[in-house]
């Protein structure tokens, strides 16, 4: 059992992590560390994605056809693997966003109701 799985902060629902990754790649291609920093930034530090969760998700999403990867140079001239959204990935981001909107609205209403 690897330690990062016990970490509540990063123990995200799989769908949520996928959505965050898709979102962080919406504007530009990015490497692994970049993606996790972007997610931290987007969530104002609520979600810290560790490599043990990030890499399996990236590889799975690549196999799903949502992402493509290529090797390139990082901002400080280091070799890094960059990920980029495909058209399927963009469609997935859209549908995830809509679904999430519906769910969060429903939950918010449910919590207010009482």
């Amino acid at each position, binding site marked *: 059992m690897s330690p990062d799985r016990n970490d509540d902060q990063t123990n995200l629902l799989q769908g949520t992590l996928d959505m965050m990754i898709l979102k962080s790649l919406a504007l530009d291609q990015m490497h692994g*560390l970049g993606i996790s920093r972007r997610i931290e930034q987007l969530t104002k530090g609520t979600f810290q994605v*560790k*490599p043990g969760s990030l890499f399996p998700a990236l590889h799975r999403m*690549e196999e*799903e056809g949502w992402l493509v990867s290529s090797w390139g140079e990082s901002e400080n001239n280091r070799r890094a693997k960059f990920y980029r959204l495909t058209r*399927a990935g963009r469609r997935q981001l859209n549908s995830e966003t809509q679904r999430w909107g519906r769910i969060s609205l429903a939950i918010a209403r449910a919590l207010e109701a009482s």
Partner: protein
Amino acid sequence: MPALSRIKNFFRNIFAKHRADRDLDDEVRSYADLLTQEKIRAGANPDEARRTSRLELGGVEQVKEQVREARAGAWLDSLFQDLRYGAHMLRKNPGFTAVAVLTLALGIGANVAIFTLTYAVILESLPVPNPQQLVRYTFRSGAHDFGLSGPLYDALRKHEDVDQDLLAWGGGGTLTAQEDGLATNVEGELMSGNGFRVLELQPFLGRFFSDADDQIAGGPNGYQAVLSYPFWKQHFHADTNVVGRSLSINGTEVTVIGVLPAGFQGVAIGQPPDIILPLSFEEILNAPHPLRHAPGRFWLTVIGRLKPGASLRLAEANLRTTEESVRADADPSHRFLGGFFATFRIGVERGGSGRSFLRFTYGRPLVVLEILVGLVLLLCCANTALLVLARVSSRLREFAVRSALGASRRRLFRQAMCEVGLVTFFGLMAGIALGWAGAKSLVAMLAAIGQPPPLDAAPQAAVFVFTAGISVLSALAAGAWPAVRASRVAPILGLKEGGTGSTSKALGRWIVPVQVAVSVVLMAAASLLGTSFFRLLLADSGFRPQGVVLAAVNLMETKVTPAVATQLAQQIVDTLGAAPGVDSAAVMSQPPLHGWWSAAHYYSLDQKGVLHPDMQTWQEAVSADYFATIGTPILKGRGFARADIGGAPVCVLSASAAQNFFPGEETVGRFVFAGGNDPALDGKTKADPKDTCRVIGVAADAHFQSLHQPPERAIYQVVPQNGVGVIFFVLVRSSNAQIATTAIRSAVRKVAPAAPAPTVFTFNQLLAEHLRQERMLMALSACFAAVALLLTALGLYGLLSRNVVMRTKEIGLRLALGAHPRDALSSVLWQGLRLVILGSAAGLIAAFGIAKLLRSLLIGVQLDSPVLLIAAVAAIFVAASLASCIPAWRAARVDPMEALRYE
């Protein structure tokens, strides 16, 4: 194209694994690199940055393993890897592999063998639509399972209303079929015209006969016949023009109208017909004395198809209310159903598998064997679990290291299971081979004297499914538990010095007592079945079997009358009496313990004038030297002498017949009268002198029908005052069975050259055949018990030896501190014995249960003393002590210095 990309990745992951792996490695390392750079830029010193980023990463290998698991096709890939690794580990440990495979092969093989038989004898259905709707009517008393008489069939058909219809099926025997002057012997069976409709069979070729065709002199088109598929293929070379051809069966013309479907071999299992004829044809075959309407001939297998909604229970209830009127209708005279066959009851049971003599004899023993063999499998699984556990616990370090290096729990579990799976696979293969060989020899054991094996134990699909099922179950039972333990190992264990877990000990504490308990049960069952066999074998049967050779002489084909047959029998005995090497020779009308049945009507008047009728007297016609030859002692009076032959009728009674006819009175010199088959007339008419015989002696009781039943009340009359039939039995007492056999064969050839060669067998063979059910149970349960004992001893030995190895350091320390080697010895011994005591206690309780079960399932099993159970437990104790001794002795010989220097 998500699907396409997934497939592409699947193949990449499988076939270009190394490249993908290198790529992944690069990626994770580059991530670590970037992280370090980030920290350095934030102001950390390079070493500190590298350390914290590695901590944050949580290990390159773990991350890689997690990615690999997320990949498509990862499971397949790692499965191959695990299988390869498992095979490698098995090759490296040939001892473990051999013992584990053998243990499983034994358990699976025994189950396959018994199940093959159970399937063939009990479970297999007739190849007809909806066999579960079929019921069979029976006529039984004790060990006799008769068919129904023709009148009983007719009466049953008239009275019962739960079946759509009832068919009757009877053996026609070996017939002569002639076509264009060419004669062949064929096995003929007879079936009522409605039979094909009741069975819902469809012809392979042509059509079947129906009620309209089943009449005296045949139907509108004369007698008609249906051929079996194999006979049609072999004899008619699968000629489709066979339909319409005419055959002469025992001299009567019949027309072939159809061919049976390939799988259908009749409703009497083990007696496949070549040709099926309408039931009414019997009246031609057995003219002038047909059986069809004889109230005292019980030869028909009666099968019905239940109406929709009716059940077996309903049929039973219906039968109970109608049995009396059925009996009255079938035999208005009450001579047979109320007299000779009064002890027989009509019954109804499931008929979907047809009528099988094997099922009647072996049905219950097979249930018993299934239970025992299931226990053996349990034991084998327990042993395999112990073995796997030993393997796992000796590799706990390895598992811990692998877990520390990033292997997931699931992966570790699967890896341990892979090894078990491989062992099971090889065990299964060996088990199937063993099982089929076993089934073959078991079937050979079932064969009657002079008969081929009674059934075909060919591998069946159902047996395959069953075997696969038990194998998967045993693999799970044997492997899952240890594998779970292995997968839960804490990574830290791998880093600790000498860290070997204690899990195996805890598990062994459960498995060994279970093994002991199961062994006690199996030992108890074996001793119970063994004693009931030997009790029957050694019981006083009323005969002295040693040195007696018998022969069945059949003069049926020579067409002689019973009177001539009796003369020939006397001549054979005279010839034999003069033959060298023969002590004495005799003839008897019915052989003992060979499934024969005899009931005759006699009565007597005691001194108070009270009438003692008996319609179930065993009537035996014997020649003068019978008692000396077969060894039945004469208790009072004398046996027959040659002088009796010409004189007034005389007889010898068995002790129980004497007690029945003349209770408490002197018997010798009194008279017994042959009844007229009508008890109402007993004593009312003056007995004909030729029906009156004077009792000249009383013989000891003898078991003619069965050793399980009380002896028959027998009356012996001397040949030729009372004749033998056209089938009779010659017996010879001789010190050399070979000489006796040759003498019998040549005497029969000389006196009756036209008769077929007689079937010759020794009395001991007869006895063995009579007890073959008990013998089979005894032999198999003894085998199972031996296996149980061996496996339990091995299991205990393995557990204790491993324990001693693990405790070497501790024992050494104790010895160094002044403990006596005897303490080490007794500590290990006690450790083993404690488990045995626990298991024995549980086993004893279970053994009483199994004894009860056996007694309810089998006739003749008695739990007469707890001595046997105690002996069973004692045997386990001895085996367990022996198994504990070696490890205990090793513990006592531990050298303190060496033990402390260890590791």
